[in-house]
């Protein structure tokens, strides 16, 4: 995979197809854990990790198990099953061998076992990159896309943690306090991201 393709895929995943702000997936952790920067970063790190891992497992399953048997339509159920089991397994392994990482990442892992953003990335990967090309190169592209999607999630979380910090310091009208003003600002942030549409195509195209 060329460097150009790598950056094109990563930047597309971060800016154009941002999972939170453009595709509206993974909104629950986005709203739930973005109150503090520390926890937002911790959560995002866990999401990046799980996204990569989930793609690494589900993409071969789709390619070697489901598609040859004509079971492509079963991907949702199979992926949820596999991702949930996988995250549990990772948690057990971390707890046993890397307790420090488990202490910082552990609380977020169960939260994202069947997160829609994770599932969305896996299914998008299958839809976009499953083709006639050799498995190795499409697999690398799928992993790259997952990395970009995770980084995009992290960027959205970090940005929004900053926005929420500002909101907390200001006096919103009583009817807007709390979740309403948070949703309004999330919407504005999302609208801002529509400005990136077409940018990557023109840079790398």
């Amino acid at each position, binding site marked *: 995979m060329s460097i150009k393709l790598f950056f094109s895929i990563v930047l597309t995943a971060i800016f154009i197809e941002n999972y939170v702000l453009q595709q509206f997936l993974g909104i629950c952790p986005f709203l739930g854990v973005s109150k503090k920067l520390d926890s937002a970063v911790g959560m995002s790190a866990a999401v990046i990790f799980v996204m990569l891992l989930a793609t690494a497992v589900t993409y071969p399953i789709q390619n070697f198990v489901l598609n040859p048997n004509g079971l492509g339509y079963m991907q949702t159920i199979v992926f949820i099953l596999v991702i949930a*089991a996988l995250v549990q*397994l990772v948690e057990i392994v971390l707890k046993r061998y890397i307790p420090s990482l488990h202490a910082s990442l552990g609380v977020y892992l169960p939260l994202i076992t069947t997160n829609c953003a994770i599932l969305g990335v896996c299914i998008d990967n299958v839809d976009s990159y499953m083709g006639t090309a050799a498995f190795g190169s499409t697999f690398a592209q799928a992993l790259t896309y997952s990395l970009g999607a995770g980084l995009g999630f992290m960027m959205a979380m970090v940005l929004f943690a900053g926005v929420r910090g500002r909101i907390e310091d200001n006096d919103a009208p009583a009817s807007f306090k709390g979740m309403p003003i948070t949703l309004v600002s999330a919407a504005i942030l999302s609208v801002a991201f529509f400005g990136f549409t077409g940018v990557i195509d023109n840079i790398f195209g």
Partner: protein
Amino acid sequence: MGAIVTAVIVVAVIGVICAVMLSVASKVMAVQVDERIPLVRECLPGANCGGCGFPGCDGYAAAMVNDEDTPLTLCAPGGAATAEKVANVLGRSAGEMVKSYAYVNCLGDCDATGKKLDYVGIETCAAAKLTFGGEGKCTFGCIGLGDCTRACPSDAIHIGAKGIARVDTRVCTGCSACAKVCPNHIISILPAEVPVRISCSSHDKGPAVKAKCSAGCLGCGMCMRKCPSQAIHMENNLAVIDYEKCTGCGTCAAVCPAKCILPRPEAKQASA
């Protein structure tokens, strides 16, 4: 019909593989958790103040169970009652609990010292400290913008009328939350019964202190020389008391020319 059967079989096989993998992993890599940890954790107040030096109450509970040498008396908010309860759970003696309070080592109020600049900005000590060491002439003393007040979980420390922090010992638990946030590190946690306390934090030399604050330690060493039990030594132009040796005779408080060694309030009342 064939399609359904294949789908069911494939999904079932994947499910069984996952299940076997998980159950094997949870057996093989099981982590032994001592069941006394949650019991000990129940005894602690749950303030997560960090005063014990461990990461929160969970950390302290784990340390007490796993390491026999961890003292049971480190929880300042819980006090002796908590230490007693933990001792019951663990079956070892609690040891002596020393009640401690926060003490602000500064007497530089509005009467004793003055401003060198007018600070206009974010109203926190940490921010003010960044602009020429704060508003006051003395850069070692209390800045008076109340970072400690905001950090205190029990509302025990407040900026007094004269602009420096004062501790309300009736509610202070000695958790050291204030001591950790003070950018000048002028708050110390001292046992309640210490007889005398150095009430200055300035490491400036004598003349410089005198020019800035009338209540500052000049570093003259009079207390060190007069102390009958050699409990005081000078560190960087500031007197430091070794409470292991201090007998509480009060000589230092009497001889200090700047009157910045204060006897305990109760002792003061008794002599007055």
